[in-house]
């Protein structure tokens, strides 16, 4: 199967999921604020934003979760703005601290690879350590733990600095490792040694690994969550319409804008700070 088909499918899946899930949003009852993903180690230090706020202001620890949620939403918005090639992520339904993702490798050694992963963000974000990236299936790669599937992100973000480091950078890094192989201090020494000593064997192992990953593509998501990314074989009844929507989507924003009765008003000529400075001709609505 052409990897781009996967890609298309996954996007459709995401779109569908969002559509499915969106209407249920207004019923707020089920909405959960970020909880701690199970894979995260219990917090041992009182460094969460909530406690920090508390120590500073005494009384207002309670807003901490909301600041956290807001920060994560801001991060997600940044990710969307970056338009990282071949990378799709979506926060989980249950926790804003857990994001589901998939990465499509379009060329290089890992070409045709479609790797699902999960991003775990520490709950004291942005003051804690860097987010973790764990592949659903451990990819054969020097920097990916062959047992847990975790990518060594920390080497790129030794110290997570608020305002400077963003989650999109982590995702960017997760993509880069497949194009530019680094064998220093590997989590998978076998892969590192092979890459350095016997590239041909390394390559064949990679191909095997890619095949394995792709063969599990239609498996149920590893984590049960309404927003988890799941793949399904192409089904025209379901997907054709979604595909159609995707391809028309690009034109939609402007159309939408045009069709909509202009809700805002301006008679200010660009470059001027005078009210009603626009030429009369351009005022005609």
């Amino acid at each position, binding site marked *: 199967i052409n990897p781009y088909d996967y890609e298309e499918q996954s996007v459709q899946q995401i779109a569908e999921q969002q559509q499915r899930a969106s209407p249920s949003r207004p019923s707020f009852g089920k909405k959960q604020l970020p909880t701690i993903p199970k894979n995260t180690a*219990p917090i041992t230090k009182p460094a969460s934003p909530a406690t920090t706020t508390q120590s500073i202001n005494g009384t207002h620890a309670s807003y901490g979760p909301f600041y956290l949620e807001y920060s994560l939403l801001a991060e997600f918005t940044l990710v969307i703005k970056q338009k990282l090639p071949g990378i799709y992520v979506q926060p989980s339904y249950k926790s804003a601290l857990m994001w589901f993702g998939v990465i499509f490798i379009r060329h290089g050694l890992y070409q045709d690879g479609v790797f699902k992963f999960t991003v775990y963000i520490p709950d004291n974000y942005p003051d804690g350590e860097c987010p973790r990236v764990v592949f659903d299936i451990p990819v054969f790669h020097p920097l990916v733990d062959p047992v847990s599937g975790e990518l060594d992100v920390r080497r790129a973000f030794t110290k997570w600095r608020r305002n400077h480091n963003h989650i999109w950078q982590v995702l960017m890094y997760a993509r880069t490792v497949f194009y530019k192989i680094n064998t220093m201090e590997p989590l998978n020494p076998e892969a590192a040694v092979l890459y350095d000593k016997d590239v041909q064997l390394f390559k064949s192992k990679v191909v095997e690994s890619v095949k394995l990953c792709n063969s599990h593509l239609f498996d149920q998501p590893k984590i049960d969550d309404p927003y988890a990314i799941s793949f399904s074989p192409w089904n025209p009844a379901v997907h054709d319409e979604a595909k159609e929507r995707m391809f028309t989507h690009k034109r939609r924003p402007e159309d939408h804008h045009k069709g909509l009765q202009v809700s805002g008003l301006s008679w200010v000529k660009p470059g001027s700070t005078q009210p009603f*400075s626009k030429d009369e001709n351009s005022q005609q609505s």
Partner: protein
Amino acid sequence: MMMASMVANGNRDGQALVLTGVDPETCMIVFKNHWAQVVKILEKHDPLRTTNHLASAVQNYVEHMLFLLMEEDAGQAGAMGPILEFVVMENVMERLFLWSLRRQFTDDMKLEQLKMYEMIVGQARQPLLHHKPVLRPLMMLLSSCSGTPTPRVEAELVLLLNQLCCVLAKDPSVLELFFHTSEDQGATNFLIFSLLIPFIHREGQVGQQARDALLLIMSLSAENQRVAQHIAENTYFCPVLATGLSGLYSSLPTKLEVSSEEWHCLHREDWLQMPALVQFLNSLEFCNAVIQVAHPSIRDQLVNYIYNGFLVPVLAPALHKLTLEEVMTTTAYLDLFLRSVSEPALLQTFLTFILLHRHENVHILDTLVSRVNTPFQLGTVSLALFRTLIGLYCEDVMLQLILRYLVPCNHMMLSQRRVVKERDCYSVSAAKILALTPSCCSPEHSPPPLRQLDSILWSKGNESKTEESCLEDGSGHSCIIGSEIYLDVSYLHYLYDARLGISSCIRACRVWSAPYDGEDPPPDEYQASALEEAGASRGRRAQMVNPKGAHPHPRPRPPCQTAGPAPMNQLELEWDDSYDAGPPANAETTAAERPAQPLAPEPPKHIQALRRTATMLVKGSYIEESDFQDDVMVYNLVAKKDVRDTLDGRRSSQETESKGSETESQLNDNGHGFADSSREVQEVPLSNGLSLPLQRATVEVGSDTERSKEVKENIADHNSKVQSPTATDIGDELVAQYEELIRTLGGGEVGAGTEGREPFQNPIVTPTEEDEMDFGSFSVDTPEVDKHAPSLFGTKLRSGSARSQPLPFTGPFVSVLLSRLENMLENSVHVNLLVTGILAQLAAYPQPLLRSFLLNTNMVFQPSVRSLYQVLASLKNQIEQLASTRKDFPELITSAQHCLLARESSLIGHGKTMVYLNTQ
């Protein structure tokens, strides 16, 4: 042809019901027979002596005939059917009309004729109006009805006109015929239209039908240049419409019966109780609809008439009535009108009026802003008006209200400019602002939920339970680990509302000209070229004004720009000082309330505004209201708190200065000099009471000599001459300027009476008013004067040196709003809801300049600039203090929360009905 008709008839089910088995030939024979009978009567009998018996016989025949005509189908290829052909050949309709005209042309006859046409026009199966023998008598009939018809005739007439308009809308080719026929008659072109005009403002069904019909013609005008031109140039449609608004407005109650203290704007259920207001709104809605569909030339003419025929002569004075109640009522009307109007062109007209029109030299906007701080209902209603204005997402409004004071970035430290665009990803500012929550209101102290709600539980996650176990605990929506926090689900509703507000605001602001992010518009350029920009904009305006010949009906523009075709010279352009109001010459106006002394870092403008309001209220004409005495006392009590620090010093300076010379008093202070308003138009009175607008470099004048020096300089500037400040005799210059003015303006159309000439009509300063003016700013003793000394010299200012010290001021509206916020404890709940609502509206705006000013607590502002954070901090202290002095405070808080929740539920339950709440 017969065959074809027959076939056609046979195929028609509808017809089969009516004329079963009757073939066209038979119909024709019947028609001819009837006509022969009618003609016999018509020819044999003198119409005046025709007996009722004969008349009704004619009527019967005619009814049958018309029925046959109506039911006849067109011939092949659109040719006339045989009956119609006969009608045209024999001139049936005209003969019938003339006959009835020669009899006593009573209302009954008119009605009969009108109904006749109504029937055939509305139901004929072939076009009848294309034929002159049908159209001409119709036009004669309509002409005969053009006088002052009785209600019965009126109703029938309007119905027929409405039907004719429907025909026109379907078949515009008839339009030309209407014009031609009218020409034949030598009567007014387009009779249909002229006949409808008197019904524009009519109540009830007749009015509605007339307006609907007119709208059809308006839509036609958009396509048909001839119709548009005719309506705009040969009819009184637009003036009637606009002056009608004035007439209807005058019948509105001048004082509203206010049901309760919480009342702040006219809701639907309010105005539905007021027939006069309903009628006004109908007409306004009609104007709105006309502007929507009509040809641009009609639209432009109409908005122009509305501006010059309603807003300026009627609404402006109404906004400056003598009593608070009247002013409040007008403000509420204005608010309602703004909410009722949807067409951008009409909104623009209203907004131009509010933002740029000056009534007695004060911008309407400035007056409205100053009224926000009045502690009476007027203040509340004014707040509601601003809520409406801000809710329009209009760049021009926001520019004049707030943004123009922020664009130069003078309100912040220079180093802060790069911070403007920064986003607070980690909610640092939110944390800081929320830390100002009084301890009595913190979530920890909140009582358990008063309603049964889904609550959101947040786990701090310091227990080792797994995600699954806590999520699937059966309730489906709670997560309980360790210490949890209860949050009302309304928090999510709040988020939902906030998101909705923010996203719709962002969407709306896409049409704005600039992002207002501290870079565009560029702050430095704006400052450095403030003077040039002002000049340039005037130049632009002049270009807009000049080609008047091409636009016989200019759009509304600042009234200072004369509407006449007179050539603009530089002097005249100076009248259009779009930056700010001129001097508050008339003490009755609220000019005195304007936040003044922007140059001075202390005292804050809003305090001065308060004081001025107080002065005005005591000295001004409001005092004529006997029942106002109490209000003054209330006001003074409120004002005292703010004023106490500053009042004394300023009062003394005022006293000394009030002894100044006549010139001094006439060159009164308009009370500002906002960062971007360094040039002011000042009225220099001449000996004959006329006044001459002069541009002044600044409003702050230290002494007589300096002032006259400045005057001279400005005059020199006007003439573009290089003159030594001391060389010229000021008198000569003034006379020269005056003559020039007269020549330019007087040569035009002085009689037309746009307010551009107001200064001529109203000598602005009278001795009595002098007493009420604030001379504080003239004071030589006040410390501010030193600061402004450099700007007294126009040349210096021009060189830019005077602007090296930007004057931090965020504008009167922000001052007033923050001042009301700071008085939260004294305000009623409804005022507080309005104030916080407006702040929430402002906070939703995406412009970084505004957002950073309101919400970025890390920004470092100039010391004289008050920030929202400071005001909230002061509020927190006030509340903590109050809480510590009242033993029952916790109980009060609880009952207040109950009240607010009850209010919310009642809002959900009963629409807009508000529940009265007691503050404390």
